[in-house]
């Protein structure tokens, strides 16, 4: 270290002690999806001491993340809704998954406790289409023998802000209901024919908690930390499954990653134990990086996360990628950037 850097370092340490201490760590910046933000922050914190990479991740939303990586204002972008092959080629981007999450339905029905209520995909779709409007609808009562359901209006709540959570939720509803697919479709924000919109996970959870008869959808982590009342949902094999670690892992294992951009369909996968609403979240990395060293550090960071980050992810109720998927991602890096 020559004298000038020493002086610079001392200056930085005096004005900004926190940054000064990390002056030697390799800096990388990322922006995008808010859904994986908690785990990315945790990984970033751990990676700083483990591999000396400092990650600055801004949780600005998937759409904004895509914009920023297209404009190359960050080293990597993050999105919940995967880009398709054409979009990836146009933007010269490599897409790979990092971690998965699951969605749960939350309800507020007097007398109904956690994981008691059973619902099916088509019923959920019809609730969000405004076709099933009462909790004692014959179709709901038929599969919930032994549960007394009140004659109460169903109040569906959805995310009003554009969100990857909505993307996954409507992907599932479109998968199980042809009518939902044609009338509403898939996107980060869609036009729901019924219900009321709330801002963010906390808004949806708040609405469900406050309104009797409400139903909403949130990320599992959010439902657990806030002790919300979740439901069972029927999976593709016809079994009613509870939202718990085993069913999430079963769904994650059943996904087929051998598709362009790793845009695997993890929604409504087969398997007797699979939870039907699981989704990966993605990173976008330029294939023609302006600064090769920073790009390499991004890969070094996620390589470390694949190796040592599973425990941290699980603590935050995320689902780690299966080993096969991680290997496929590493292979894709090597193909693109060389070993």
């Amino acid at each position, binding site marked *: 270290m020559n004298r000038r850097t020493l002086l610079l370092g001392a200056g930085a340490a005096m004005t900004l002690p926190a940054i000064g201490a990390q002056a030697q760590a390799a800096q990388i910046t990322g922006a995008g999806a808010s859904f994986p933000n908690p785990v990315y922050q945790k990984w970033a914190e751990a990676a700083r001491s483990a591999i000396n990479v400092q990650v600055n991740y801004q949780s600005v939303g998937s759409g904004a993340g895509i914009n920023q990586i297209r404009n190359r204002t960050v080293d990597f972008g993050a999105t919940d809704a995967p880009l398709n092959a054409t979009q990836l080629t146009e933007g010269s981007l490599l897409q790979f998954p990092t971690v998965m999450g699951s969605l749960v339905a939350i309800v507020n029905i007097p007398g109904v406790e956690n994981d008691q209520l059973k619902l099916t995909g088509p019923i959920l779709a019809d609730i969000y289409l405004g076709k099933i409007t009462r909790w004692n609808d014959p179709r709901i009562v038929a599969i919930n023998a032994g549960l007394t359901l009140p004659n109460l209006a169903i109040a569906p709540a959805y995310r009003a802000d554009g969100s990857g959570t909505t993307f996954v939720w409507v992907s599932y509803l479109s998968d199980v209901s042809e009518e939902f697919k044609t009338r509403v479709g898939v996107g980060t924000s869609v036009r729901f024919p019924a*219900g009321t919109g709330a801002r963010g996970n906390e808004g949806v959870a708040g609405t469900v908690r406050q309104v009797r008869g409400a139903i909403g959808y949130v990320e599992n982590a959010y439902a657990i930390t806030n002790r919300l009342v979740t439901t069972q949902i029927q999976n593709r094999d016809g079994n009613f499954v509870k939202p718990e670690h085993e069913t999430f892992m079963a769904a994650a294992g059943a996904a087929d990653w051998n598709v362009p951009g790793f845009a695997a369909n993890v929604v409504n996968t087969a398997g007797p134990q699979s939870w039907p609403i699981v989704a990966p979240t993605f990173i976008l990395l330029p294939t023609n990086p302006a600064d090769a060293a920073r790009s390499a550090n991004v890969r070094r960071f996620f390589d470390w996360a694949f190796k040592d980050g599973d425990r941290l992810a699980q603590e935050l109720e995320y689902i780690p990628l299966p080993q096969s998927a991680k290997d496929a991602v590493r292979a894709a890096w090597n193909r693109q950037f060389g070993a």
Partner: protein
Amino acid sequence: MSQAATASPPAPARTARGAGNLGDIIFEWACRGAGIFVLLLLGAIIVELFIAGLPAFRAFGIGFIWSTEWDPVQEVFGAGVSIYGTVVTAVLAILLAVPVAFGIAFYLTELAPVWLRRPVGTAVELLAAVPSIIYGMWGFFVIVPAFATYIQPTLIDTLGELPLVGFLFQGAPFGTGIFTASFILAIMILPFIAATMRDVFEQVPPVYKESAYGLGATTWEVMRGVVIPYTRVSVVGGIMLGLGRALGETMAVTFVIGNANRITGSLFGPGNTIASLVALEFGESETGSLKLASLLALGFILFVLSFIVLATSRYLLRSRLKA
């Protein structure tokens, strides 16, 4: 009219500025620059919004303004629902706020003991300083549950049964919706309207009021026959000022309006306003997309709406506040 009576003040004498007084010249030009800068900025914003929103106007034509479609999946956008929500919530808020503001202003200028006028007046002005996010959270966690549990079910069961107007009060008691948003907005704009009204009521020459009292008029008659006619134009100006704020309010509305892009007809139904829709959708709009253009076009429409309202209010307030 009154503004014709108030002649413009004579131009300040220019002889005072001696030659070589460089400081004065620099000061004058700095101030002039600041003034022009604001104008340029305003112009630049409106032009920029219009240009950025142009793709939306091109794609959907002038029908963009009244189309009630907002379907991001099909890429069909229209401003109808959010313009409707913006105007309805703002007007309802005015209807709720004006009588109360009038009461506050009248109490402070005519009825309250002198020692109480200052503290109450200051409290009203402090209400205006509460950040809107606070109103939003208060609305979401206090007002919405109260509306959902008590007020809306009662109104739905009683007023909802009425012929002709019943449809206004029907629907599920979510607690959120157009009416809740209007209620929160009314509280937010109350201090603006009340403060303006108080200021203009104080402008009424005491001799007019004393003459009326001398003729045996009651307090109410003085108010109706002297104060209101004298200040009418300015009061309307103050109301327009409140309307301007209600139109652009974002955060508090987003929390409580229900954020649904459809017109339900019921006051308790969910809706959307321009500001709220733009704030919610902006993060998930990609550069160059039609959605982003539509949001910017919405911003342009809101700008024009607010500009018209505020310009009207300045115009109406001008004569009185100058006097």
